[in-house]
């Protein structure tokens, strides 16, 4: 077996040194009846070539968004990832290291995490950020728990435009800790109304969670909601599922957010059928000791040289155990590195251009689609994703598009299955990767299907 270095002679010599006759002697503490005498019923070892063949066959059964014109979003976006990113994250010193418990031999990881934290803080307009969470949905759930801890209140208002998965994950966590969630119905058919959220804030509200651009693509002004929340002593959690939008849109930190959570997949990270991604989590200095997750801090070594360490660990499970701010341990380090390298390549100008390209392409496609009989554009505002109402059920249209080799959009009922009233609505995302030919293909196919 190519991964196992021992020869039979090595094994024999080592058993001799241990004073054991056979490997079974090493398992002497296992109850005899539970010790297997033969391999389990699974295929036997194969070479590298056979493994590649098996996976290639499975890959071939999927419709690849790299080949098909793709307009899928709903919280995961296809962006061009510069080759540099994927090359750098595969350097073994990054790839095969673990959590930087030994800072003297982990300065590479620690420094990029410090850069990551800084980039996230800058993008979101917040003072501090942690070293990553699993994804945007879990980061949002953690934000609600953090707000409940910080305010000693147990009620959260989640705006209707919050991504359905983010809501569901938050609901699952909140249930365990008896935090009440208030969630007005999602309604993409009318412009977002801040009153739908503001009216629900009371004196026991720990936080208000507002996503922008929201699940339907609408850009939400956080300011009136933040003002109302702060007046009642509640925190504001701002969520974004498309971090590239912050290259063009105002940072939530400048609009009154106390905590910002986001999905970072758009920068540097492969779509990979939904994971692994990277959750971004930023907040104010005042709240930092309530923050979940690992965080890197700057310090000096004994020679006075600048360096980095994991810090504020008294919040964390390995020190505080059942009193920790979260149970998170392993996070998304390598995805954070990919994010950081992509953001470093973009820089100020690159990010701005990328965001503008996304928005420009989205404007172009929105206009083209709105001109089709049987398609109605629902959004007044959007970044790179918008909702359309179709003259036919969206799930059927999406399947018909797939048969034509086009990944056309996400039916809203896939996210909100109980909302039969939304069965004709579809989310359409457009990024810099979509060509004019992609858009023409979608428009022509929709014209045929809806005629």
């Amino acid at each position, binding site marked *: 077996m190519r991964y196992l270095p021992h020869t039979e002679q090595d094994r024999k010599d080592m058993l001799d040194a241990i004073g054991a006759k056979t490997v079974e002697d090493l398992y002497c503490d296992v109850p005899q009846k539970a010790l297997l005498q033969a*391999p389990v019923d699974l295929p036997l*070892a194969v070479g590298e070539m056979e493994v590649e063949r098996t996976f290639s066959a499975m890959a071939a059964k999927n419709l690849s968004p790299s080949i098909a014109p793709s307009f899928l979003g709903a919280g995961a976006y296809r962006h061009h990832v510069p080759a540099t990113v994927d090359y750098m994250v595969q*350097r073994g010193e990054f790839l*095969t*290291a673990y959590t930087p418990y030994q800072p003297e031999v982990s300065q590479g990881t620690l420094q990029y995490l410090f850069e990551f934290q800084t980039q996230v803080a800058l993008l979101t307009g917040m003072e501090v950020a942690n070293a990553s969470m699993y994804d945007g949905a879990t980061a949002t759930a953690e934000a609600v728990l953090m707000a409940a801890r910080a305010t000693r209140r147990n009620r959260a208002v989640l705006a209707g435009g919050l991504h359905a998965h983010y809501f569901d994950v938050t609901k699952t966590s909140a249930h365990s800790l008896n935090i009440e969630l208030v969630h007005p119905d999602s309604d993409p058919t009318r412009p977002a109304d801040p009153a739908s959220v503001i009216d629900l804030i009371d004196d026991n509200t720990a936080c208000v969670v507002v996503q922008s651009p929201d699940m339907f693509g609408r850009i939400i002004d956080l300011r009136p909601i933040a003002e109302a929340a702060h007046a009642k002593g509640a925190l504001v959690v701002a969520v974004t599922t498309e971090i590239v939008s912050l290259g063009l849109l105002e940072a939530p930190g400048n609009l009154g957010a106390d905590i910002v959570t986001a999905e970072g997949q758009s920068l540097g990270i492969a*779509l990979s059928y939904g*994971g692994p991604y990277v959750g971004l989590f930023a907040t104010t200095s005042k709240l930092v000791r309530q923050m979940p997750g690992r965080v890197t801090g700057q310090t000096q070594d004994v020679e006075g040289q600048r360096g980095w360490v994991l810090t504020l660990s008294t919040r964390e499970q390995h020190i505080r155990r059942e009193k920790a701010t979260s149970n998170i341990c392993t996070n998304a380090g390598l*995805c954070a590195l990919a994010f950081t390298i992509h953001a470093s390549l*973009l820089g100020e100008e690159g990010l701005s251009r990328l965001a503008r390209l996304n928005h420009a392409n989205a404007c172009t496609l929105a206009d083209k689609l709105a001109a089709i009989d049987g398609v109605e554009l629902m959004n007044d505002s959007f*970044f790179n994703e918008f909702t359309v109402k179709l003259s036919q059920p969206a799930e059927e249209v999406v399947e018909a598009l797939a048969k034509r080799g086009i990944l056309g959009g996400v039916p809203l009922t896939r996210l909100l299955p109980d909302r039969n009233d939304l069965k004709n609505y579809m989310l359409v995302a457009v990024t810099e990767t979509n060509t004019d030919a992609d858009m023409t293909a979608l428009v022509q196919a929709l014209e045929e299907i809806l005629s």
Partner: protein
Amino acid sequence: MSDQSRDLSQGRTNVPVGGSQAPAQQTISGSKGLDFAEPLIFELGEDGRTGVDLADVKVSDNRLGGLRRKDKVGLPGLSEPQVVRHYTRLSQKNYGIDSGFYPLGSCTMKHNPRVNEKIARLKGLGDLHPMQPTSTAQGALELIDTLAHWIKTLCAMPAVAMSPAAGAHGELCGMMAIKAALEDRGEADVRKRVLVPESAHGTNPATAAACGFSVDSIPATERGRVDFAAFKAKLGPDVAGIMLTNPNTCGLFENEVIEIADAIHDAGGYFYCDGANFNAIVGRVRPGDLGIDCMHLNLHKTFSTPHGGGGPGAGPVVLSEALAPFAPLPYIVHGKDGFDLVEHKADSDAKPFGRLKGYHGQMGVFIRALAFMMSHGADGLRQASSDAVLNANYLRAELQDQMSVSFDGMCMHEVLFDDHFLKDTGVTTLDFAKAMIDEGFHPMTMYFPLVVHGALLMEPTESEAKETLDLYIKTLRGLNARAQSGDAQFFKNAPVLTPRRRLDETAAARKPVLRWSPDAN
């Protein structure tokens, strides 16, 4: 960028290194040969530079809801070669499995095969969108289903929840399933107490608390196992279950595990097994045969997916018949037209407790883990776990005359020492570990588990050749001789050959600097 931040040697003062090493040569640049002084990207950038070529299109404000960004983000501009060099240099300040022996106990730092990286990036896998119609992702669902089959077979368990993103997330999944089962029985308000051995990972009590349970600690015996009598005495009608790591964090198999399972079940509770140490028993012991109700697998440990400087991981959770109905969303079913994905509560007997993360799980990690499993096969996996246990016992056998093994007898895939052997030397576990760094080894896990004093927990994994282990043994024996000879200062100074020497963690926590900012630096 300020003038000060343009100084590339910033943060580097060439003070001669201490200890018995020769003074380092002063350099003008701050770099020392291959040990480069590397500033933060924020100190390297220049407005007007970029590492990507994208069109400069103009957009109107009409559709931006009046919320167009007014100020700059503040990101530095770097060219592609600058970015490549910067991150290459950072990588060189890191220790990975590729660099050397990494016996970090309870983390299973085994070789990460590169073919798995290649496969994870195949078109049709790495680029699949989670929301594309399932009719266009049958191969992806087949892959997840195949991995689930391998996991269930290796564990002899009827069901597996695939979506948890890491071990601790898997713990959350398991404990939430237990809570849901108790709710279903109408006993959730009564059964609020979870028993957790004092040797447990910190994530166990943190998870129990995150699920609204109280934590009751079980003591260990002198043999490093759960004190069965103390455990039995704690059982009662208010107990929800036990969270037990097996093999445990002392590197030992809980030989009374079946009795523990029977007792917790008789008391009406559930058995959560922490599978962090599954690498010792893959293909040799099936957790289902031990009477567990749920257990997470760390795919990034046992099944070799890269640890990546702290993630990503994946933590699928196997479930018994009793807990299977409560598995979280989404899950895969075999439909009439192939595989289907159940993303919402369906009209069936299933009672999912909710959703744990966005989309369907850590697909990129699944791909690598399944490739690892298939490469090994049933025979290779069994051989791998045996070799891991063999390696740990070899370290134990070759070091026990010099270092204090905490518990007698055979160990599993990791071996636990305590600091008794350093008594009266003035050298601590931390000092000893730092001296190992200068010798080119990554230290073991230190000061965990908490049940022994000054713990040193070594996990060699099956990836290490006998020659590597022999050099490690020789090195540790030599370091111990030096400690016993009274040269404590040598250890206090260590490490001296690293990019940075010991860092001031107290100062970092007292006055946290958690980001670069233009004014402060």
